[in-house]
Protein backbone atom coordinates (compact mmCIF):
# COMPACT_ATOMS: atom_id res chain seq x y z
CA UNK A 1 0.00 0.00 0.00
CA UNK A 2 1.26 3.46 -0.88
CA UNK A 3 1.06 6.23 1.64
CA UNK A 4 0.40 9.59 0.02
CA UNK A 5 0.40 12.58 2.39
CA UNK A 6 -2.96 13.58 3.80
CA UNK A 7 -5.21 13.48 6.81
CA UNK A 8 -4.46 10.96 9.52
CA UNK A 9 -5.42 10.23 13.09
CA UNK A 10 -2.32 11.01 15.15
CA UNK A 11 -3.73 10.01 18.51
CA UNK A 12 -6.85 8.50 19.95
CA UNK A 13 -7.87 8.50 23.62
CA UNK A 14 -10.65 6.39 25.09
CA UNK A 15 -12.25 6.77 28.50
CA UNK A 16 -14.96 4.33 29.58
CA UNK A 17 -15.50 3.34 25.94
CA UNK A 18 -16.67 -0.28 25.59
CA UNK A 19 -14.23 -2.40 27.62
CA UNK A 20 -11.61 0.36 27.97
CA UNK A 21 -11.43 2.23 31.25
CA UNK A 22 -8.74 4.60 30.02
CA UNK A 23 -6.32 4.08 27.18
CA UNK A 24 -4.57 6.07 24.48
CA UNK A 25 -2.71 5.28 21.29
CA UNK A 26 -0.31 7.36 19.23
CA UNK A 27 -0.72 6.30 15.64
CA UNK A 28 1.75 6.83 12.78
CA UNK A 29 0.78 7.38 9.16
CA UNK A 30 0.91 4.26 7.03
CA UNK A 31 -0.49 0.94 8.17
CA UNK A 32 -1.31 0.21 11.80
CA UNK A 33 -2.31 -3.33 12.64
CA UNK A 34 -4.39 -3.97 15.74
CA UNK A 35 -4.17 -7.59 16.78
CA UNK A 36 -5.37 -9.63 19.69
CA UNK A 37 -7.74 -12.45 20.51
CA UNK A 38 -11.43 -12.22 19.72
CA UNK A 39 -13.47 -10.23 22.19
CA UNK A 40 -10.49 -8.26 23.51
CA UNK A 41 -11.55 -4.96 21.93
CA UNK A 42 -9.78 -4.64 18.56
CA UNK A 43 -12.85 -3.41 16.78
CA UNK A 44 -13.75 -1.06 19.65
CA UNK A 45 -10.72 1.10 18.86
CA UNK A 46 -11.75 1.36 15.21
CA UNK A 47 -15.32 1.98 16.30
CA UNK A 48 -14.23 4.95 18.45
CA UNK A 49 -12.24 6.53 15.62
CA UNK A 50 -15.07 6.01 13.14
CA UNK A 51 -17.62 7.53 15.55
CA UNK A 52 -15.66 10.79 15.36
CA UNK A 53 -16.00 10.71 11.56
CA UNK A 54 -19.60 9.53 11.10
CA UNK A 55 -21.23 10.49 14.38
CA UNK A 56 -22.38 6.93 14.99
CA UNK A 57 -21.06 3.42 15.48
CA UNK A 58 -20.33 1.63 12.21
CA UNK A 59 -21.51 -1.55 13.89
CA UNK A 60 -25.03 -0.17 14.04
CA UNK A 61 -25.40 -0.18 17.82
CA UNK A 62 -26.98 2.64 19.83
CA UNK A 63 -24.59 5.05 21.56
CA UNK A 64 -25.63 3.85 25.01
CA UNK A 65 -24.10 0.44 24.18
CA UNK A 66 -20.69 2.10 23.79
CA UNK A 67 -20.53 3.27 27.41
CA UNK A 68 -18.54 0.96 29.70
CA UNK A 69 -20.72 -1.06 32.07
CA UNK A 70 -21.57 0.85 35.24
CA UNK A 71 -20.51 4.23 33.78
CA UNK A 72 -22.61 7.19 32.62
CA UNK A 73 -20.39 8.64 29.92
CA UNK A 74 -17.81 7.43 27.43
CA UNK A 75 -15.26 9.91 26.08
CA UNK A 76 -13.37 9.64 22.79
CA UNK A 77 -10.74 12.17 21.73
CA UNK A 78 -9.10 12.05 18.34
CA UNK A 79 -6.24 14.29 17.28
CA UNK A 80 -6.19 14.70 13.52
CA UNK A 81 -3.13 15.81 11.67
CA UNK A 82 -3.72 17.26 8.23
CA UNK A 83 -1.54 19.22 5.79
CA UNK A 84 -3.49 22.43 6.29
CA UNK A 85 -4.30 22.26 9.99
CA UNK A 86 -4.49 19.88 12.92
CA UNK A 87 -7.83 19.34 14.57
CA UNK A 88 -9.17 17.79 17.73
CA UNK A 89 -12.50 16.04 18.08
CA UNK A 90 -13.83 15.28 21.54
CA UNK A 91 -16.99 13.25 21.92
CA UNK A 92 -18.89 12.54 25.14
CA UNK A 93 -21.36 9.70 24.66
CA UNK A 94 -23.98 9.57 27.37
CA UNK A 95 -26.07 6.65 28.50
CA UNK A 96 -28.99 9.06 28.89
CA UNK A 97 -29.39 12.55 27.49
CA UNK A 98 -27.63 14.31 24.66
CA UNK A 99 -24.12 13.53 23.50
CA UNK A 100 -21.56 16.28 23.74
CA UNK A 101 -19.36 16.98 20.73
CA UNK A 102 -16.46 19.43 20.68
CA UNK A 103 -14.50 20.31 17.55
CA UNK A 104 -11.27 22.14 18.33
CA UNK A 105 -12.67 22.85 21.78
CA UNK A 106 -15.90 24.42 20.47
CA UNK A 107 -19.28 22.81 20.99
CA UNK A 108 -20.84 21.39 17.84
CA UNK A 109 -24.61 21.86 18.16
CA UNK A 110 -25.62 19.62 15.28
CA UNK A 111 -24.11 16.32 14.30
CA UNK A 112 -23.90 17.35 10.67
CA UNK A 113 -21.43 20.12 11.58
CA UNK A 114 -19.01 17.42 12.72
CA UNK A 115 -19.14 15.59 9.40
CA UNK A 116 -16.17 16.36 7.21
CA UNK A 117 -13.66 17.04 9.99
CA UNK A 118 -12.44 13.45 9.61
CA UNK A 119 -13.26 11.26 6.62
CA UNK A 120 -12.99 7.50 6.77
CA UNK A 121 -13.80 4.55 4.53
CA UNK A 122 -14.82 1.49 6.51
CA UNK A 123 -14.57 -2.07 5.24
CA UNK A 124 -16.34 -4.45 7.59
CA UNK A 125 -17.58 -8.05 7.48
CA UNK A 126 -21.17 -6.72 7.50
CA UNK A 127 -20.58 -5.15 4.08
CA UNK A 128 -21.75 -8.40 2.53
CA UNK A 129 -25.27 -7.29 3.48
CA UNK A 130 -24.89 -4.45 0.96
CA UNK A 131 -25.29 -7.05 -1.78
CA UNK A 132 -27.11 -9.86 0.00
CA UNK A 133 -29.56 -7.72 1.96
CA UNK A 134 -32.64 -5.77 0.93
CA UNK A 135 -32.79 -2.50 -1.04
CA UNK A 136 -32.66 -0.34 2.13
CA UNK A 137 -28.96 -1.08 2.64
CA UNK A 138 -28.12 -0.06 -0.91
CA UNK A 139 -30.18 3.12 -0.59
CA UNK A 140 -28.29 3.96 2.61
CA UNK A 141 -24.98 3.29 0.83
CA UNK A 142 -25.90 5.76 -1.94
CA UNK A 143 -27.28 8.38 0.44
CA UNK A 144 -24.32 8.26 2.80
CA UNK A 145 -21.88 8.67 -0.06
CA UNK A 146 -24.03 11.49 -1.39
CA UNK A 147 -24.04 13.35 1.93
CA UNK A 148 -20.29 12.83 2.36
CA UNK A 149 -19.52 14.32 -1.03
CA UNK A 150 -22.25 16.94 -0.93
CA UNK A 151 -23.24 17.76 2.67
CA UNK A 152 -26.28 19.74 1.53
CA UNK A 153 -28.01 16.39 1.03
CA UNK A 154 -27.95 15.58 4.74
CA UNK A 155 -30.60 18.28 5.09
CA UNK A 156 -32.50 17.13 2.00
CA UNK A 157 -32.51 13.55 3.23
CA UNK A 158 -33.67 14.48 6.74
CA UNK A 159 -36.42 16.72 5.32
CA UNK A 160 -37.56 14.01 2.93
CA UNK A 161 -37.79 11.42 5.69
CA UNK A 162 -39.79 13.84 7.85
CA UNK A 163 -42.20 14.56 5.00
CA UNK A 164 -42.74 10.82 4.44
CA UNK A 165 -43.52 10.34 8.15
CA UNK A 166 -45.98 13.25 8.17
CA UNK A 167 -47.57 12.00 5.00
CA UNK A 168 -47.89 8.46 6.35
CA UNK A 169 -49.58 9.80 9.49
CA UNK A 170 -51.93 11.79 7.28
CA UNK A 171 -52.75 8.80 5.04
CA UNK A 172 -53.36 6.57 8.05
CA UNK A 173 -55.82 9.15 9.31
CA UNK A 174 -57.67 8.97 6.00
CA UNK A 175 -56.08 12.12 4.56
CA UNK A 176 -57.31 14.47 7.27
CA UNK A 177 -56.04 15.13 10.77
CA UNK A 178 -58.76 15.51 13.40
CA UNK A 179 -60.99 17.16 10.88
CA UNK A 180 -64.40 16.74 9.25
CA UNK A 181 -64.03 19.28 6.49
CA UNK A 182 -60.50 19.00 5.07
CA UNK A 183 -61.01 18.08 1.43
CA UNK A 184 -57.48 16.90 0.78
CA UNK A 185 -55.91 20.36 1.10
CA UNK A 186 -53.46 19.23 3.80
CA UNK A 187 -52.50 16.12 1.83
CA UNK A 188 -51.96 18.29 -1.24
CA UNK A 189 -49.47 20.42 0.71
CA UNK A 190 -47.50 17.34 1.77
CA UNK A 191 -47.67 15.98 -1.79
CA UNK A 192 -45.99 19.17 -2.91
CA UNK A 193 -43.29 18.80 -0.25
CA UNK A 194 -42.80 15.12 -1.05
CA UNK A 195 -42.24 16.01 -4.69
CA UNK A 196 -39.93 18.94 -3.89
CA UNK A 197 -37.64 17.07 -1.46
CA UNK A 198 -38.02 13.68 -3.16
CA UNK A 199 -37.07 14.92 -6.63
CA UNK A 200 -34.05 16.70 -5.18
CA UNK A 201 -32.89 13.52 -3.45
CA UNK A 202 -33.58 11.48 -6.59
CA UNK A 203 -31.62 13.86 -8.77
CA UNK A 204 -28.71 13.70 -6.35
CA UNK A 205 -28.76 9.90 -6.27
CA UNK A 206 -28.97 9.53 -10.05
CA UNK A 207 -26.17 12.01 -10.69
CA UNK A 208 -23.98 10.28 -8.11
CA UNK A 209 -24.65 6.82 -9.56
CA UNK A 210 -23.88 8.08 -13.05
CA UNK A 211 -20.60 9.37 -11.78
CA UNK A 212 -19.49 6.43 -9.63
CA UNK A 213 -20.82 3.39 -11.46
CA UNK A 214 -17.86 3.29 -13.89
CA UNK A 215 -15.67 3.33 -10.77
CA UNK A 216 -17.62 0.42 -9.30
CA UNK A 217 -17.18 -1.53 -12.54
CA UNK A 218 -13.47 -0.79 -12.55
CA UNK A 219 -13.05 -1.80 -8.90
CA UNK A 220 -15.01 -5.00 -9.53
CA UNK A 221 -12.75 -5.92 -12.47
CA UNK A 222 -9.69 -5.27 -10.32
CA UNK A 223 -10.87 -7.49 -7.49
CA UNK A 224 -12.70 -10.34 -9.21
CA UNK A 225 -10.92 -13.55 -10.12
CA UNK A 226 -13.02 -14.03 -13.25
CA UNK A 227 -14.87 -10.78 -13.82
CA UNK A 228 -18.19 -10.93 -15.68
CA UNK A 229 -20.37 -8.09 -16.96
CA UNK A 230 -21.58 -5.90 -14.08
CA UNK A 231 -24.64 -3.80 -14.72
CA UNK A 232 -26.83 -1.60 -12.56
CA UNK A 233 -30.36 -0.35 -12.84
CA UNK A 234 -31.99 2.27 -10.64
CA UNK A 235 -35.53 0.95 -10.22
CA UNK A 236 -38.55 3.01 -9.18
CA UNK A 237 -41.47 0.60 -8.96
CA UNK A 238 -43.82 3.49 -8.37
CA UNK A 239 -42.98 5.33 -11.59
CA UNK A 240 -46.01 4.99 -13.84
CA UNK A 241 -44.61 7.07 -16.65
CA UNK A 242 -41.15 7.62 -18.02
CA UNK A 243 -38.92 6.01 -20.57
CA UNK A 244 -39.27 2.39 -19.47
CA UNK A 245 -42.16 2.39 -17.04
CA UNK A 246 -40.31 1.43 -13.85
CA UNK A 247 -36.69 2.36 -14.52
CA UNK A 248 -35.68 6.01 -14.55
CA UNK A 249 -33.29 7.25 -17.13
CA UNK A 250 -30.26 8.61 -15.33
CA UNK A 251 -30.30 11.83 -17.30
CA UNK A 252 -33.64 13.17 -16.08
CA UNK A 253 -33.61 16.66 -14.61
CA UNK A 254 -35.15 17.51 -11.26
CA UNK A 255 -38.12 19.08 -13.06
CA UNK A 256 -38.75 15.88 -15.05
CA UNK A 257 -38.36 13.77 -11.92
CA UNK A 258 -40.87 15.99 -10.12
CA UNK A 259 -43.28 15.50 -13.01
CA UNK A 260 -42.85 11.72 -12.82
CA UNK A 261 -43.53 11.83 -9.07
CA UNK A 262 -46.63 13.98 -9.47
CA UNK A 263 -48.01 11.62 -12.12
CA UNK A 264 -47.38 8.62 -9.86
CA UNK A 265 -49.00 10.35 -6.89
CA UNK A 266 -52.22 10.85 -8.75
CA UNK A 267 -52.13 7.37 -10.27
CA UNK A 268 -51.53 5.70 -6.90
CA UNK A 269 -53.68 8.01 -4.74
CA UNK A 270 -56.31 5.35 -4.13
CA UNK A 271 -53.85 2.63 -3.18
CA UNK A 272 -51.96 4.98 -0.86
CA UNK A 273 -55.16 5.75 1.04
CA UNK A 274 -56.05 2.08 1.17
CA UNK A 275 -52.64 1.08 2.50
CA UNK A 276 -52.21 4.17 4.67
CA UNK A 277 -48.62 4.67 3.61
CA UNK A 278 -46.53 6.58 1.07
CA UNK A 279 -45.92 4.38 -1.96
CA UNK A 280 -44.29 6.99 -4.20
CA UNK A 281 -40.76 8.30 -3.83
CA UNK A 282 -37.08 7.45 -3.48
CA UNK A 283 -37.60 5.70 -0.11
CA UNK A 284 -39.10 2.81 -2.12
CA UNK A 285 -36.36 2.52 -4.72
CA UNK A 286 -33.91 -0.23 -5.51
CA UNK A 287 -30.44 -0.09 -6.97
CA UNK A 288 -30.34 -3.46 -8.70
CA UNK A 289 -26.89 -4.86 -9.49
CA UNK A 290 -26.58 -7.75 -11.91
CA UNK A 291 -23.60 -9.99 -12.70
CA UNK A 292 -23.71 -11.54 -16.18
CA UNK A 293 -27.39 -10.66 -16.28
CA UNK A 294 -28.20 -12.42 -13.00
CA UNK A 295 -29.46 -10.61 -9.90
CA UNK A 296 -26.46 -10.32 -7.58
CA UNK A 297 -28.62 -10.29 -4.46
CA UNK A 298 -30.07 -13.73 -4.98
CA UNK A 299 -28.19 -15.45 -7.77
CA UNK A 300 -24.51 -14.67 -7.30
CA UNK A 301 -22.18 -16.89 -5.26
CA UNK A 302 -21.08 -15.71 -1.84
CA UNK A 303 -17.57 -15.07 -3.19
CA UNK A 304 -18.90 -12.90 -6.01
CA UNK A 305 -21.15 -11.05 -3.57
CA UNK A 306 -18.19 -10.34 -1.33
CA UNK A 307 -16.12 -9.08 -4.26
CA UNK A 308 -18.95 -6.79 -5.31
CA UNK A 309 -19.33 -5.43 -1.77
CA UNK A 310 -15.61 -4.68 -1.65
CA UNK A 311 -15.89 -3.01 -5.07
CA UNK A 312 -18.65 -0.71 -3.77
CA UNK A 313 -16.52 0.34 -0.81
CA UNK A 314 -13.40 0.80 -2.93
CA UNK A 315 -15.31 2.88 -5.48
CA UNK A 316 -16.80 5.07 -2.75
CA UNK A 317 -13.34 5.54 -1.22
CA UNK A 318 -12.03 6.72 -4.58
CA UNK A 319 -15.05 8.95 -5.17
CA UNK A 320 -14.58 10.71 -1.82
CA UNK A 321 -10.83 11.03 -2.44
CA UNK A 322 -11.48 12.56 -5.87
CA UNK A 323 -14.10 14.96 -4.50
CA UNK A 324 -11.84 16.36 -1.79
CA UNK A 325 -8.40 15.79 -3.33
CA UNK A 326 -7.51 13.79 -0.24
CA UNK A 327 -7.81 10.12 0.61
CA UNK A 328 -9.99 9.27 3.62
CA UNK A 329 -8.45 7.23 6.44
CA UNK A 330 -8.97 3.55 5.65
CA UNK A 331 -10.47 1.33 8.33
CA UNK A 332 -10.42 -2.42 7.68
CA UNK A 333 -12.25 -4.32 10.38
CA UNK A 334 -11.43 -8.00 10.30
CA UNK A 335 -11.76 -8.08 6.52
CA UNK A 336 -9.10 -10.60 5.53
CA UNK A 337 -10.51 -13.50 7.52
CA UNK A 338 -13.45 -13.54 5.10
CA UNK A 339 -11.41 -13.23 1.92
CA UNK A 340 -9.35 -15.73 -0.03
CA UNK A 341 -5.70 -15.01 -0.72
CA UNK A 342 -6.27 -13.69 -4.22
CA UNK A 343 -8.92 -11.13 -3.21
CA UNK A 344 -6.97 -10.06 -0.10
CA UNK A 345 -3.87 -9.41 -2.19
CA UNK A 346 -5.88 -7.63 -4.89
CA UNK A 347 -7.55 -5.42 -2.29
CA UNK A 348 -4.30 -4.58 -0.51
CA UNK A 349 -2.72 -3.64 -3.81
CA UNK A 350 -5.51 -1.20 -4.74
CA UNK A 351 -5.90 0.53 -1.41
CA UNK A 352 -4.00 3.74 -1.04
CA UNK A 353 -4.39 6.08 1.87
CA UNK A 354 -2.21 8.23 4.08
CA UNK A 355 -3.32 6.05 6.95
CA UNK A 356 -4.82 2.60 7.23
CA UNK A 357 -6.08 1.00 10.44
CA UNK A 358 -6.50 -2.77 10.30
CA UNK A 359 -7.92 -5.07 12.94
CA UNK A 360 -7.20 -8.75 12.52
CA UNK A 361 -7.10 -11.93 14.53
CA UNK A 362 -4.99 -13.74 11.94
CA UNK A 363 -2.00 -13.01 9.73
CA UNK A 364 -1.94 -10.18 7.21
CA UNK A 365 -1.86 -10.75 3.46
CA UNK A 366 1.57 -10.80 1.88
CA UNK A 367 2.96 -7.42 0.87
CA UNK A 368 1.53 -5.18 3.58
CA UNK A 369 4.14 -2.82 4.98
CA UNK A 370 3.34 -2.30 8.64
CA UNK A 371 4.26 0.99 10.35
CA UNK A 372 2.99 0.08 13.81
CA UNK A 373 1.52 -2.87 15.66
CA UNK A 374 -0.99 -2.46 18.44
CA UNK A 375 -1.56 -5.32 20.81
CA UNK A 376 -4.88 -5.58 22.60
CA UNK A 377 -5.31 -7.66 25.75
CA UNK A 378 -7.01 -7.35 29.14
CA UNK A 379 -8.80 -4.10 28.19
CA UNK A 380 -5.60 -2.25 27.40
CA UNK A 381 -4.07 -1.39 24.06
CA UNK A 382 -0.36 -0.80 23.55
CA UNK A 383 1.73 0.21 20.57
CA UNK A 384 4.58 -2.24 20.24
Amino acid at each position, binding site marked *: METPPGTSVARVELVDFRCYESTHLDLPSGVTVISGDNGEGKTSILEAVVWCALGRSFRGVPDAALVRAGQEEAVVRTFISAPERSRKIEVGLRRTGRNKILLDGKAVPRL*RDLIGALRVTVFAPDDLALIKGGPAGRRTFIDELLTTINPRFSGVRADYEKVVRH*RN*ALLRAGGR*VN*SQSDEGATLE*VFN*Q*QLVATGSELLEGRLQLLNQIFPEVQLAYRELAIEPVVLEADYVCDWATSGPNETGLSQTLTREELAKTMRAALSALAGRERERGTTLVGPHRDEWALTLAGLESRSQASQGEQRTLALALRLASHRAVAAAFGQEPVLVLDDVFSELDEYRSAALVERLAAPQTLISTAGPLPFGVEVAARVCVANATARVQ
Partner: protein
Amino acid sequence: MQTLIDELGRLPGIGPKSAQRIAYYLLKSPAEDANRLAGSITEAKARVTWCQRCFSIAEGELCAYCQDDRRDSTSLCVVEEPRDIVAIERTHEFNGRYHVLQGAISPIEGIGPEQLRVKELLRRVESEEVKEVILATNPNIEGEATAMYLGRLLTPLGIKVTRLASGLPVGGDLEYADEVTLGRAFEGRREVEA
Protein backbone atom coordinates in the same frame (compact mmCIF):
# COMPACT_ATOMS: atom_id res chain seq x y z
CA MET B 1 -40.93 15.52 46.85
CA GLN B 2 -41.21 13.05 43.96
CA THR B 3 -44.43 14.78 42.82
CA LEU B 4 -42.56 18.09 42.64
CA ILE B 5 -39.70 16.53 40.66
CA ASP B 6 -42.16 14.87 38.28
CA GLU B 7 -44.05 18.11 37.75
CA LEU B 8 -40.88 20.09 37.08
CA GLY B 9 -39.68 17.37 34.73
CA ARG B 10 -42.74 17.87 32.54
CA LEU B 11 -41.63 21.43 31.71
CA PRO B 12 -40.01 21.95 28.29
CA GLY B 13 -36.22 21.82 28.30
CA ILE B 14 -36.04 20.31 31.80
CA GLY B 15 -34.70 16.77 32.11
CA PRO B 16 -34.85 14.53 35.18
CA LYS B 17 -31.54 15.82 36.55
CA SER B 18 -32.45 19.50 36.21
CA ALA B 19 -35.84 18.78 37.76
CA GLN B 20 -34.14 17.23 40.76
CA ARG B 21 -31.72 20.16 41.11
CA ILE B 22 -34.54 22.73 40.95
CA ALA B 23 -36.64 20.77 43.45
CA TYR B 24 -33.80 20.65 45.99
CA TYR B 25 -33.08 24.33 45.41
CA LEU B 26 -36.71 25.25 46.08
CA LEU B 27 -36.83 23.17 49.24
CA LYS B 28 -33.68 24.81 50.56
CA SER B 29 -34.75 28.38 49.74
CA PRO B 30 -36.85 30.48 52.17
CA ALA B 31 -40.57 29.78 52.23
CA GLU B 32 -41.41 33.28 50.92
CA ASP B 33 -39.31 32.74 47.77
CA ALA B 34 -41.07 29.48 46.99
CA ASN B 35 -44.46 31.04 47.72
CA ARG B 36 -43.71 33.99 45.46
CA LEU B 37 -42.92 31.58 42.60
CA ALA B 38 -46.03 29.53 43.27
CA GLY B 39 -48.09 32.71 43.52
CA SER B 40 -46.80 34.16 40.27
CA ILE B 41 -47.58 30.94 38.42
CA THR B 42 -51.14 30.89 39.81
CA GLU B 43 -51.66 34.57 39.09
CA ALA B 44 -50.27 34.44 35.57
CA LYS B 45 -52.42 31.41 34.83
CA ALA B 46 -55.50 33.22 36.17
CA ARG B 47 -54.92 36.60 34.50
CA VAL B 48 -53.25 35.82 31.21
CA THR B 49 -55.52 34.58 28.46
CA TRP B 50 -55.55 34.46 24.68
CA CYS B 51 -56.04 37.74 22.89
CA GLN B 52 -59.50 37.60 21.30
CA ARG B 53 -58.24 38.98 18.02
CA CYS B 54 -54.72 37.65 17.37
CA PHE B 55 -54.51 34.73 19.87
CA SER B 56 -51.25 35.85 21.37
CA ILE B 57 -51.09 36.05 25.14
CA ALA B 58 -53.00 38.96 26.67
CA GLU B 59 -53.92 40.24 30.10
CA GLY B 60 -57.32 41.43 28.98
CA GLU B 61 -59.56 40.87 26.02
CA LEU B 62 -56.92 42.21 23.62
CA CYS B 63 -53.11 42.06 23.66
CA ALA B 64 -50.91 45.15 23.67
CA TYR B 65 -50.30 45.01 19.91
CA CYS B 66 -53.98 44.71 19.04
CA GLN B 67 -54.82 47.63 21.35
CA ASP B 68 -52.17 49.91 19.86
CA ASP B 69 -53.92 52.23 17.35
CA ARG B 70 -50.65 53.41 15.86
CA ARG B 71 -50.00 50.04 14.28
CA ASP B 72 -50.78 49.45 10.62
CA SER B 73 -53.85 47.26 10.27
CA THR B 74 -53.36 46.66 6.55
CA SER B 75 -50.45 44.31 7.07
CA LEU B 76 -50.77 41.12 9.06
CA CYS B 77 -47.89 38.92 10.14
CA VAL B 78 -48.74 35.25 10.81
CA VAL B 79 -46.55 33.43 13.33
CA GLU B 80 -46.65 30.04 15.07
CA GLU B 81 -46.16 31.09 18.70
CA PRO B 82 -46.40 34.26 20.84
CA ARG B 83 -42.62 34.14 21.39
CA ASP B 84 -42.12 34.67 17.64
CA ILE B 85 -43.78 38.10 18.03
CA VAL B 86 -41.15 39.05 20.59
CA ALA B 87 -38.40 38.10 18.12
CA ILE B 88 -39.96 40.12 15.28
CA GLU B 89 -40.60 43.12 17.56
CA ARG B 90 -36.92 43.22 18.43
CA THR B 91 -36.14 44.00 14.79
CA HIS B 92 -38.32 47.18 14.76
CA GLU B 93 -38.89 46.36 11.09
CA PHE B 94 -42.57 45.60 11.30
CA ASN B 95 -45.33 47.88 12.44
CA GLY B 96 -48.38 45.90 11.44
CA ARG B 97 -50.62 43.48 13.30
CA TYR B 98 -49.98 39.86 14.26
CA HIS B 99 -51.88 36.61 14.14
CA VAL B 100 -50.73 33.66 16.22
CA LEU B 101 -51.62 30.19 14.88
CA GLN B 102 -50.62 28.51 18.15
CA GLY B 103 -48.65 25.82 16.35
CA ALA B 104 -47.95 24.44 12.89
CA ILE B 105 -49.44 21.65 10.80
CA SER B 106 -47.91 18.39 11.99
CA PRO B 107 -49.79 15.18 11.13
CA ILE B 108 -47.29 13.12 13.18
CA GLU B 109 -48.53 14.94 16.29
CA GLY B 110 -52.14 14.91 15.10
CA ILE B 111 -52.19 18.64 14.40
CA GLY B 112 -54.07 19.72 11.30
CA PRO B 113 -55.39 23.13 10.20
CA GLU B 114 -58.43 22.77 12.43
CA GLN B 115 -56.29 22.55 15.56
CA LEU B 116 -54.75 25.90 14.62
CA ARG B 117 -56.25 29.41 14.53
CA VAL B 118 -56.77 29.25 10.76
CA LYS B 119 -60.52 29.91 10.64
CA GLU B 120 -59.95 32.93 12.85
CA LEU B 121 -57.24 34.17 10.44
CA LEU B 122 -59.59 33.90 7.46
CA ARG B 123 -62.29 35.76 9.35
CA ARG B 124 -59.85 38.56 10.15
CA VAL B 125 -58.65 38.84 6.55
CA GLU B 126 -62.27 39.12 5.42
CA SER B 127 -63.47 41.56 8.10
CA GLU B 128 -60.40 43.75 8.65
CA GLU B 129 -58.70 46.01 6.12
CA VAL B 130 -55.79 43.58 5.47
CA LYS B 131 -53.87 44.17 2.24
CA GLU B 132 -50.82 41.99 2.87
CA VAL B 133 -50.36 38.78 4.84
CA ILE B 134 -46.77 37.93 5.77
CA LEU B 135 -46.29 34.24 6.49
CA ALA B 136 -43.61 34.08 9.20
CA THR B 137 -43.85 30.42 10.17
CA ASN B 138 -40.62 28.56 10.92
CA PRO B 139 -38.39 27.52 8.00
CA ASN B 140 -38.77 23.79 8.73
CA ILE B 141 -41.01 21.11 7.22
CA GLU B 142 -43.99 21.88 9.47
CA GLY B 143 -43.67 25.66 9.11
CA GLU B 144 -43.28 25.41 5.33
CA ALA B 145 -46.29 23.09 5.08
CA THR B 146 -48.35 25.56 7.12
CA ALA B 147 -47.23 28.50 4.98
CA MET B 148 -48.05 26.56 1.80
CA TYR B 149 -51.47 25.62 3.16
CA LEU B 150 -52.26 29.21 4.13
CA GLY B 151 -50.90 30.52 0.82
CA ARG B 152 -53.38 28.33 -1.06
CA LEU B 153 -56.25 29.63 1.09
CA LEU B 154 -55.31 33.29 1.02
CA THR B 155 -54.11 33.94 -2.51
CA PRO B 156 -57.60 33.51 -4.08
CA LEU B 157 -58.87 36.25 -1.75
CA GLY B 158 -57.02 38.82 -3.84
CA ILE B 159 -54.59 40.03 -1.19
CA LYS B 160 -50.81 40.11 -1.28
CA VAL B 161 -49.32 37.03 0.38
CA THR B 162 -45.59 36.97 1.18
CA ARG B 163 -43.21 34.56 2.89
CA LEU B 164 -40.13 35.51 4.92
CA ALA B 165 -36.90 34.91 2.98
CA SER B 166 -34.38 32.23 3.98
CA GLY B 167 -30.74 32.99 3.64
CA LEU B 168 -27.43 33.91 5.12
CA PRO B 169 -27.14 35.16 8.68
CA VAL B 170 -26.01 38.77 8.67
CA GLY B 171 -22.58 39.53 10.10
CA GLY B 172 -21.36 35.97 9.66
CA ASP B 173 -18.75 34.60 7.33
CA LEU B 174 -19.84 32.79 4.20
CA GLU B 175 -17.27 30.11 5.03
CA TYR B 176 -19.08 29.16 8.23
CA ALA B 177 -22.63 29.07 6.88
CA ASP B 178 -24.03 25.56 6.86
CA GLU B 179 -24.71 23.99 3.47
CA VAL B 180 -28.49 23.97 3.73
CA THR B 181 -28.67 27.67 4.58
CA LEU B 182 -26.13 28.58 1.93
CA GLY B 183 -28.00 26.42 -0.61
CA ARG B 184 -31.26 28.23 0.20
CA ALA B 185 -29.50 31.56 -0.07
CA PHE B 186 -28.32 30.60 -3.55
CA GLU B 187 -31.85 29.66 -4.54
CA GLY B 188 -33.21 32.97 -3.28
CA ARG B 189 -30.44 35.17 -4.72
CA ARG B 190 -31.34 38.65 -5.92
CA GLU B 191 -30.13 40.84 -8.70
CA VAL B 192 -27.86 43.64 -7.50
CA GLU B 193 -29.52 47.02 -7.88
CA ALA B 194 -27.38 49.38 -9.90
